[in-house]
């Protein structure tokens, strides 16, 4: 009986099998890159705000503590954004002619609050709480990046579930002394591993088993 397929089909078959696998792998890789990239996560993208507020100037250059503006960060789930009156405690005298600050003055006069664009946001089915993290020695910059270097605020991390879990499994890699939590710029010390293990014990941090169980964050 004559062969149905010509010899060259051997090559074609091989090429299509390996080529197909390669194509699939390539697509998987591309989608992974896209999923991680700012295009998809919004991380590290500067946003347009009604006022170009600079954390660099206010925290590092002027030495203002986070809590002066984000008042409820230590005691509640929500960090809170400053009211217009908080801006006015200083800007009633500083930069009073700057056009940049016109929305602040307008808001103060009309009582209409400033509509900041949200930078970090979790889906509603996730429970997050600032106060527990602050209390257990997780610094703002670990999650939000070096605010002291940001002329405009951006989201530093993906806020994906695996990002949360990575720390909940290994808090000793990130934990810092409580007095360092509010530092606008912080680099972990060389002995982070050793310091971290000590602090996890001292601050009585819950076990990874508890911290990675679903109902901790999905309640």
């Amino acid at each position: 009986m004559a062969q149905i397929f010509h010899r060259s089909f051997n090559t074609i078959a091989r090429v299509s099998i390996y080529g197909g696998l390669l194509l699939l792998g390539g697509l998987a890789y591309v989608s992974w890159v896209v999923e991680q990239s700012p295009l998809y996560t919004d991380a590290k993208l500067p946003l347009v705000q009604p006022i170009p507020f600079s954390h660099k100037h206010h925290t590092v250059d002027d030495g203002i503590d986070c809590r002066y503006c984000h008042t409820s960060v230590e005691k509640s789930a929500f960090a809170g954004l400053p009211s217009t009156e908080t801006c006015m405690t200083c800007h009633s005298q500083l930069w009073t002619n700057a056009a940049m600050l016109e929305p602040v003055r307008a808001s103060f006069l009309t009582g209409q609050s400033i509509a900041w664009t949200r930078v970090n946001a979790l889906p509603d089915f996730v429970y997050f709480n600032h106060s527990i993290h602050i209390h257990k020695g997780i610094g703002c910059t670990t999650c939000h990046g070096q605010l002291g270097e940001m002329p405009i605020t951006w989201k530093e991390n993906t806020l994906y579930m695996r990002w949360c879990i990575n720390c909940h499994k290994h808090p000793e890699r990130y934990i810092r002394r409580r007095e360092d939590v509010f530092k606008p710029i912080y680099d972990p010390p060389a002995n982070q591993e050793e310091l971290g293990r000590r602090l996890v014990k001292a601050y009585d941090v819950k076990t990874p088993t508890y911290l990675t169980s679903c109902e901790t964050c999905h309640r």
Partner: protein
Amino acid sequence: MTLTRARREPRWQGGQRAAAGVSLLLLASCLAACRLDMHIQPRFDPYAPTDLFNDGRSERPMVPGTVAHGHLRTDTLLYTGRINGVVADEFPFPITAADLERGRERFNVYCTPCHDYTGSGRGMVVQRGFQHPAPPSYHIDRLMKAPVGHFFEVMTNGYGAMYSYAARVSVEDRWRIAAYIRALQLSQHATLDDVPAPERGALAGKAP
């Protein structure tokens, strides 16, 4: 304060939608979130805007004449800093070392930008131009002699160019800050005799 409801939608805008769309189409194995109904649930997050009420706020102001649980203000000394209308020179609760420490921390957060760590009134924000008028030093005679209730009142109601801090500093913390200011005032006028005898040796010769 209202926040525009950005939530998760930014993931699905413009170019991102195209990118997400392409990877969705090409990959039957797409594991990314495809449904958003649980992402935005029918509830109000803090400061979320609403069109349910005319003022657009989901946080409702109190009905006039109501008192929230735990907010009945019968203790006039604690809440006003006065006794029978006269500015008080005593604290509504005993000040412990822990209170003083808390006062120091709160002072450093809310007051140092203008009043400086020592209370000199030369904080960073003053150096950048907050000088019409600039805050006075805590170590002038008038403020040294002022009753503690005065400091409580200044924080609660504001004073001249200085705004009120009542919205951000709790009543108890305002008293703790007042106690810490007293401690600062004493520290600036301390002599070697105020130092406990065993510690004096360490300071000998170092005093200015």
